[in-house]
């Protein structure tokens, strides 16, 4: 599954119709390689969330093309029959708030997308535990979400986004509730995971603390993307301190 990347060409999205229509996305062009983490920044109302929803196949774009690896996903209409399975198997989500399922323990929270995809419970849990280990929260594997710190919850949420080894992970302001050290730790984890699983990761952010860490950024203004070079600052030193 790994190693597909994502490509978006001239994507547009119009909400509503007639006088009240809003062109949230006008001309979006992006390309993210497997193993790469790119930032998506832009002022409020510029279309970041809309873009993420299109990429995540929860709303339908109005035009343009989207490709996952060599597979055409959208070109004026959906090219996959089972959108739900697409979301489940090929796209991982990490949100601003962790949104863990409160009645499942940490392991099952992470394993759930894998179980939903039909993996048997044991194999799904084993995979979940591997990810929890990689994210340094394995010791909390049996805890309930309410017993975790904010940083731990966010790492569990990242593990959940990665458990099906999706070629694309969409992260919506994943560091917003975290202090700068924990925010950098999360970015480092995303970079490590991108390399380890050859995942293309798109991080929507306002967060000044982490913007300098991206090697490549997309800036979106009024629904139009502009590619920019980032500073690509190393985060090793700061993030080595034990996280949250």
């Amino acid at each position, binding site marked *: 599954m790994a190693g597909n990347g994502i490509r978006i060409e001239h994507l547009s999205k119009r909400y509503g119709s007639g006088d009240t229509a809003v062109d949230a996305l006008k001309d979006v062009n992006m390309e993210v390689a497997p193993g790469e983490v790119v930032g998506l920044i832009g002022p409020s109302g510029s279309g970041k969330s809309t873009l993420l929803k299109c990429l995540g196949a929860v709303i339908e774009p109005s035009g343009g093309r989207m490709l996952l690896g060599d597979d055409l996903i959208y070109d004026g209409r959906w090219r996959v029959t089972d959108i739900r399975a697409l*979301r*489940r198997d090929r796209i991982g989500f990490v949100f601003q708030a962790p949104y863990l399922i409160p009645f499942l323990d940490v392991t099952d929270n992470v394993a759930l997308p894998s179980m*939903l995809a039909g993996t048997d419970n044991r194999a799904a849990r084993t995979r979940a535990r591997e990810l929890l280990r990689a994210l340094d929260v394995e010791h909390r594997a049996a805890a309930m979400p309410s017993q975790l710190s904010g940083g731990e919850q966010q790492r569990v949420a990242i593990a959940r986004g990665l458990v099906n080894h999706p070629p694309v992970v969409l992260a*919506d302001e994943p560091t917003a509730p975290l202090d700068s050290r924990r925010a950098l730790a999360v970015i480092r984890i995303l970079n490590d995971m991108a390399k380890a699983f050859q995942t293309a990761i798109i991080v929507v952010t306002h967060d000044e603390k982490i913007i300098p860490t991206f090697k490549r950024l997309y800036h979106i203004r009024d629904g139009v993307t502009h590619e920019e070079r980032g500073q690509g600052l190393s985060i090793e030193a700061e993030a080595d301190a034990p996280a949250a």
Partner: protein
Amino acid sequence: MISLAGRDILHAWGKFVFTGMGLGLLIGVTLTMAGVYRGMVDDARVLLDNSGADLWVVQKDTLGPYAESSSIYDDEWRGILAMRGVARAANVTYLTMQVRHGARDVRAMVTGISAGEPALPGWPPSLVAGRQITRGHYEAVADLATGFGLGDTIRIRRNHYRVVGLTRRMVSSNGDPMVFIPLRDAQEAQFLKDNDAIRQQRRRTAANPAFNRPGTPGVLEAVTESQTSNPFVNAVLVQVAPGHAPETVARGIRKWKRLTAYTREQMEAILVGKLIATSARQIGMFLVILAVVSAAIVAFIIYTLTLGKIREIAVLKLIGTRNRTIASMIIQQALALGFIGFVVGKITATFGAPYFPKYVLLEPMDSLRGLLAVALICVLASIVAIRAALKVDPAEAIGG
């Protein structure tokens, strides 16, 4: 795949158990109501069974002796006994009244049974203590439910009776315990007037020139005599001889005696279909209300629980959970709630039944029907919650 519903219930078990218990009390009341109806039907059947009769002969064109009043002459039974297919026939009277014992009184159905052997229809078929009535007057056999004991003296109208025997579960179709006394006493009790009324009647009769003719002194005496005795009974109970169909015998009685005769099935139909029909409808109405209230409670609880999980449902949908899985999670929770409620209700009803003044009969089939009804109600009640859950947009998980 793990059971999402199960995990959620385990996580919030306190909420489930407490609402389940509240619902359970409601279901307990419902089961008890059904039991009250079954008890009434059973009381009616027991009354018919214990009378030992195959046919009830009553006043022409009445639904007597239980559902309507009926009176026939107390010598009709001889003619009936002489008819083909009749093995035994006996007079019987029924009068529901307050029976005094010391300072308290008990509502009872006083039954007059004709003197003779105990095998006569109308007699209590078996006793739990003491003996049957042997003397023609002032002895009584009472049901345990009256609270009377052997040797107690009870008062019916102006006469005192000694309790010589006790029965169990001999009740009227109203659930009142029965007290058996000799027929003559019972006829008197039905008819008896106080002394003032008797004097008053004598005076009026004597003042009537038609009855008090000079030269024929016997007339007045005969008339007063006929006024103070009661030659009526409520019914004649008939046992049919082996080899004869009750309906055939009944047809003969109807034709030749100009009386109405009912078979056991007809009598049961009268008791269940007419005497307790209004009560049954009343109970049916309660059952409907209780079902609606239970459904409303389940619907409300499940809806609230679901609304509290909208965010999680959006996330579940976003990561690829089927609508079907989410709907079945909600239905399973509603069913779990209903099941807890049913168990609590069944226990409550079982332990509560003996404390009811009237017989409460909890039939296993009713419980099974109750369980099915609860399941159906729970499924229907989750529809609102399921609709709300299915409307949740996975995009909500991503937010603005």
